[in-house]
């Protein structure tokens, strides 16, 4: 563990993430105001003592909404990445370990998915299934699957003929056992770096989709929704658009740095 925190990227990333998580935990118990409570007389108020980060177009407290927004972003990122990771891992491991026809077919499908630019794919998925938390998560995890599948596959392809796997096979270990208790641990570090980077890109994509009106449903305080709503008031209330932007940037930076750190460490690069 100490090894990890001696890496500056990982350390800084973790500190930022920790602060975000702290805000998240506080938001479970307390937010300065109700996140949907409106106070129209106080709309687009500048940051002040009552409203630390100002208010939005309905006079809702921006700080409270950002706190809840972090929760939504993290939830979406976590669900999208973990389901993307799960499916990517399953697909990639079987494909890479067994190879042959199956591998070719699966990789064709993965290539097909990768051939769509991510945003286009998500746009089509959401056009079909509609907006909302679950559908946003599904769209984002479909976007994440190919990346994980490819990385897992290349890891398995490299290792399936290595000496320690051959040795296990001679000892009579089953394929599943070799796949998941012997090969998998060797690529965990690479996967975790990718997961961290995917987390960052899922948060960005949610913002992009909400910007196009395709993401979450209001009045849910997602950072993407806040950003797209704030955009209409850029002229009148520049701080309103800056706050979700900065929050998104911080979250993304945190995950990028952690991912970088992990990558540096398992690449043996200081």
């Amino acid at each position: 563990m100490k090894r990890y925190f001696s890496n500056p990227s990982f350390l800084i990333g973790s500190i930022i993430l920790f602060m975000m998580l702290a805000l998240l935990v506080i938001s479970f118990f307390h937010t300065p105001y109700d996140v949907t409570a409106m106070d129209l007389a106080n709309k687009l108020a500048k940051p002040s003592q009552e409203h630390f980060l100002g208010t939005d177009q309905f006079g809702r407290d921006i700080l409270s909404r950002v706190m809840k927004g972090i929760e939504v972003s993290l939830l979406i990122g976590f669900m999208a990445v973990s389901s993307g990771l799960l499916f990517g891992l399953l697909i990639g491991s079987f494909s890479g370990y067994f190879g042959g026809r199956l591998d070719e077919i699966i990789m064709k499908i993965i290539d097909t998915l990768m051939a769509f630019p991510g945003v286009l794919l998500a746009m089509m998925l959401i056009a079909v299934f509609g907006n909302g938390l679950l559908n946003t998560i599904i769209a984002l995890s479909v976007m994440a699957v190919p990346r994980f599948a490819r990385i897992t596959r290349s890891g398995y392809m490299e290792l399936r003929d290595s000496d320690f796997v051959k040795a296990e096979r001679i000892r009579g270990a089953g394929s599943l056992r070799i796949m998941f208790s012997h090969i998998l641990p060797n690529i965990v570090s690479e996967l975790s770096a990718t997961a961290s980077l995917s987390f960052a890109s899922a948060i960005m994509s949610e913002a992009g989709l909400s910007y196009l009106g395709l993401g979450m449903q209001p009045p849910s305080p997602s950072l993407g929704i806040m950003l797209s709503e704030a955009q209409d008031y850029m002229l009148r209330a520049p701080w309103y658009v800056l706050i979700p932007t900065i929050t998104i940037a911080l979250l993304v930076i945190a995950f990028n740095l952690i991912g970088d750190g992990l990558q540096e460490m398992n690449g043996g690069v200081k």
Partner: protein
Amino acid sequence: MKKILVFLLAVLTLTSCAKNEDSSSTESLGRNNEGVSLIRLTMPSEPDSLDPYISTASDTEAVMHNVYEGLVLFDENGSIIPGLAESWEISDDGLEYTFHLRDDVTFHSGEHMDSADVAYSFEIISGLSTGEPISSRFSTITAIETPDEYTVILNLSEPNAAFLEGTRVGIIPEGYTDSATAPIGTGPYEFVEYTPGQRIVLEKNDEYYDESRMGSIDRAEIYIMSDESAIVTALQSGQLDMAQVTGSDAEVLNRNFTIHSNPQNMVCLFALNNAIEPFNDIRVRMALNYAINKDNIIYGAFDGYATRLDSNFSPVMASYYNSDVENFYPYDPEKAIELLKEAGYTDGFSFTITVPSNYQQHVNTAQIIAEDLKAVGIKAGIQLVEWGTWLEDVYSNGNYETTIIGLTGKLDPYEILVRFVSDFRRNFFHYNNGEYDKLIKEAMVETDENKRAELYKECQMILTEDAACVWTCDPNLVIAMRSDLKGYKSYPLAFTDLSALYYEE
């Protein structure tokens, strides 16, 4: 690192130099390099079709009405005025319309306009030559006669008080079939080009027949832009001369720009599916009317740039507007709770508001409504859907609980109020009131203007009494213009009158 900095600096300097050499002229007087006066404005969506007989979108009409003109035109009050026809007579039974055409009109193609062109156009409009009228309002035309070069007689199968207003549809040259790609009309501006995704370009028609409506600005570039912040930044950096903006931006832009804000004869409403529970109960509908604070919507979603509505009619149409509906349901949450109790919903209920996601103002309205309803114990969830999905599910199939939409204005009250007639195909409210249907039918054939207005006023009252919807407001059309651009005229119909605009030297 240094090299990159040098490179970036070089790029910036070069581009800024290039900027200085070509743009100094566009800045000051709205002129381009050749000294031609220019106006750059926006339209929010791609034109649906440049063909006047296919197009129905009001955004398209706002632009193309500068190119196409009909037998009649309308003025700033929405009254019918002479257009290509300098006068007309309607027979007493309302079945024969005789139009006397101007003899000094030429098309943009240079051809002279006469009754043959009008007959050709009306043969397409009425479907006599194609088999299908372009719209059901023209299905009653049975014959078109051209007794001489400048007279056209239209015969109808049944009287229709709204027919004259319909003859403002554009006239095209006889035998012309390329309107969809190269529109030719008679208006003060002629069509130059359309680049999909980018812009429409119009140029002044120097041969225009009416001096008083002759344009002053030589060239108009209409950019297709929907992104609010892109429009505002383009205005501020002098790349646009005029654009529709939100009320919120107007509050800031008014420092350097002239702001025109006028009601636009639009009806924004919170539609309730009258056919399903609990909205089939009038007490529930009335409760919703009492529970929603319309002033909050006007201030919160439209920044005050809107006029409150209490029925399906905008006060802009002054001669038909019934002012008795005003404040029929004042904001009164106590009364709403009482009514809900009476209807058997002591603990409230929950439902979904389906909102088209491309209209931020409707999305905002939905959020305010949901918050207001929370106070009377009703849970309203918001479901954003894509515009295409909304049109299919809500508008065509009427398959929804509640929705929020703005219905664009019409010059004839029939076309505005017919949406609530029980057998109207697009009555997505599922509103059904026999008396209302009867009154609308009566009004349609009534040729006495005063009686007709009375009937329509009665219709508005019925809708309000039945609480068929929660009408919210008529949002203003807010236009920001460079301060040296003058002459803006506002109409109760989507129309950007380019010919009225001029630059103050």
